[in-house]
């Protein structure tokens, strides 16, 4: 592992050099929150942010993405032939992604890139991207990444980890992509010892005061959790909007839709949400998840039980806290996780199941 030191005075110049070889993306403030945007020539990422309002997953998995296009004009030679939409797969860099969101990319990748199936749009975008993470020294009260197997200095999913060290960034090179990037930027000043990083990491971790127990989720009986008595209470307030799923860095569900304007058609890949009734509506009109309690339970069971059982890699949540802070009615995944983890089925419930 290489550790390089980037003088903050050299930062802008390095980015300028990088811009010759890469497309750059980074956090940018609009109104009262941050989003990840394309950085135009000379534009700096605004790294004094806590985290972006929406997760940066849209960089790899846009909310609405045209994937196939076709013509319905029978006079055209290529009518009714489905053609892939041209994508810009030239190298790009995402600057300032937080470690939680980078780990989330790895979790989503488990779904979109399997030995059996690959989502080509995701896989191509990911291959083109170098992730430059920014260690998180000021976590928020809703952050619980240290409980989810992540952490403010976590390296999973990153090619380079930047640590803000006053006048410098310390850059930990984690992959070949990361090495290529520091070389392209001309950042080659070796940094001293890693001890400084350890101290900063420990200080950041100490600021995360929320801990969520999830050690027992795997042992819980799936059907008993499914039938648990607390769902009605948690779901009562839920308005079944898509805020939690759309702000979540690990929610990966999408819907395919053909949109035709005149004779020109395109196939869209749009985010979908298990909170929406239409998500599970059958063409018969029957809906197997017809109530909001069923839909809310699905979201939490998927993240905190089905995923745990299927992959054995922990929960499908990195502890970024977005759903906690943005839910309009204060449904808190930390509380739900504790309830699921500590649930003890009543004996009567067992008797009914037999």
């Amino acid at each position, binding site marked *: 592992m290489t550790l390089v030191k980037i003088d903050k005075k050299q930062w802008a110049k390095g980015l300028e050099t990088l811009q010759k070889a890469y497309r750059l993306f980074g956090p940018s403030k*609009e*109104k*009262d*929150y941050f989003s990840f945007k394309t950085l135009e020539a000379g534009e700096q990422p605004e790294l004094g942010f*806590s985290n972006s*309002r*929406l997760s940066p997953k849209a960089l790899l998995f846009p*909310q*609405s993405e045209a994937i196939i296009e076709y013509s319905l004009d029978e006079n055209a030679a290529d009518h009714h032939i489905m053609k892939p939409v041209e994508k810009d797969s030239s190298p790009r860099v995402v600057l300032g992604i937080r470690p939680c969101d980078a780990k989330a990319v790895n979790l989503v990748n488990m779904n979109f890139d399997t030995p059996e199936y690959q989502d080509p749009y995701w896989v191509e975008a990911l291959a083109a991207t170098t992730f430059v993470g920014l260690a998180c020294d000021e976590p*928020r*009260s*809703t952050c619980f990444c240290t409980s989810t197997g992540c952490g403010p200095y976590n390296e999973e999913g990153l090619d380079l980890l930047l640590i803000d060290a006053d006048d410098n960034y310390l850059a930990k090179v984690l992959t070949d992509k990361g090495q290529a990037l520091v070389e392209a930027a001309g950042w080659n000043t070796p940094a001293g010892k890693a001890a400084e990083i350890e101290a900063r990491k420990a200080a950041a971790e100490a600021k995360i005061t929320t801990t969520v127990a999830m050690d027992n989720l795997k042992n819980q009986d799936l059907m008993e959790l499914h039938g648990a008595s607390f769902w009605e*209470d948690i779901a*009562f*307030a839920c*308005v*079944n*909007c*898509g*805020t939690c799923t*759309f*702000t979540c860095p690990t929610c990966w569900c999408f*819907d395919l*839709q053909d*949109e035709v304007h005149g004779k020109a058609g395109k196939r*869209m890949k*749009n985010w979908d*949400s298990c909170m*929406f*009734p*239409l998500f599970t*509506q059958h*063409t018969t009109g029957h809906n197997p998840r017809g109530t909001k309690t069923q839909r809310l339970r699905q979201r939490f069971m998927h993240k905190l039980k089905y995923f745990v059982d299927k992959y054995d890699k922990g929960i499908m949540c990195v502890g970024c806290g977005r759903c*906690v*802070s*943005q839910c*309009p*009615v*204060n*449904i*808190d995944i*930390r*509380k739900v996780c504790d309830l699921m983890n500590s649930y003890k089925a009543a004996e009567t419930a067992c008797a009914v199941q037999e």
Partner: protein
Amino acid sequence: MVIGFRKGSMPMMNEPCFIKNAEDAAQLVWDSNCGINLANYLANRKEKIGIIAKGCDSRNIVTHIIENKIGREQLVIIGVPCQGMIDKYKINAMFDGEIQDVAENDGKITVTVNDKKNELDKADVLQKNCAVCAHRNPVIFDEMVADPIEEQKGVDRYEDVREIEAMSSEEKWNYFEELLSPCIRCYACRNACPLCYCPTCFVDEAKPQWVGKGQDPSDVRTFHFLRAFHCGGRCTDCGACERACPVGINMRVFTKKLEKDSFEQFGWEAGLTLDERPPLDTYRPDDPDDFIR
């Protein structure tokens, strides 16, 4: 059961909840963070319900009763004179660090940021709709938890609407385009709204599908415009939609325009009485019709 609020897990957030046992009643709280409209939790319920209601909630309860979404005899309305809800977005935007705690006492709001206490006048940080509210007292109730408070006098409810009305077509186009550009179509505005109880919303129709599902601006606008029109003559400006929006869109400008038209053309304010049909579901020979050309 009784529908009310319990204390939330974050500053400026309370959670709507139901209480079924007397011993749980101590969970119920009331403060300036109860902006969600609890009438939203009544539609189509069959049981007997006690519900905590501030002014706007009570007006939406009236609307629900008129629209046959709940029976008056099912309800015990516990009225709360409301002194306005605080604007969590505005307060968050006022400070650089994360807000650790928000406390209130006698018209003052104390916000703790970076371990430092900052005192604000509640009047300066009210939700926009609360600042111009003319019906703080419940209009229908079975119990009142406090004496009625004096209603705000002389508030100009429609200054923002007039500003938009005065714009040229091009300015309006640009204004609405920018207003809606952050929308992620999570539908939090619709789903927090007590008026939006349609079994299937027009944007969720699938056979046939009426509206595109993606981020095409024409589809985003179709959703917001049509939803607003569906609230014409029904909206009480409770502010639940704007409060629920995760990206801070003030979609109330649409419903307020319709509210203003209802008031100016029909002298109608939604949800004030059980004894009169709303103007848009009745016909009177003297209804204004000079918009027909």
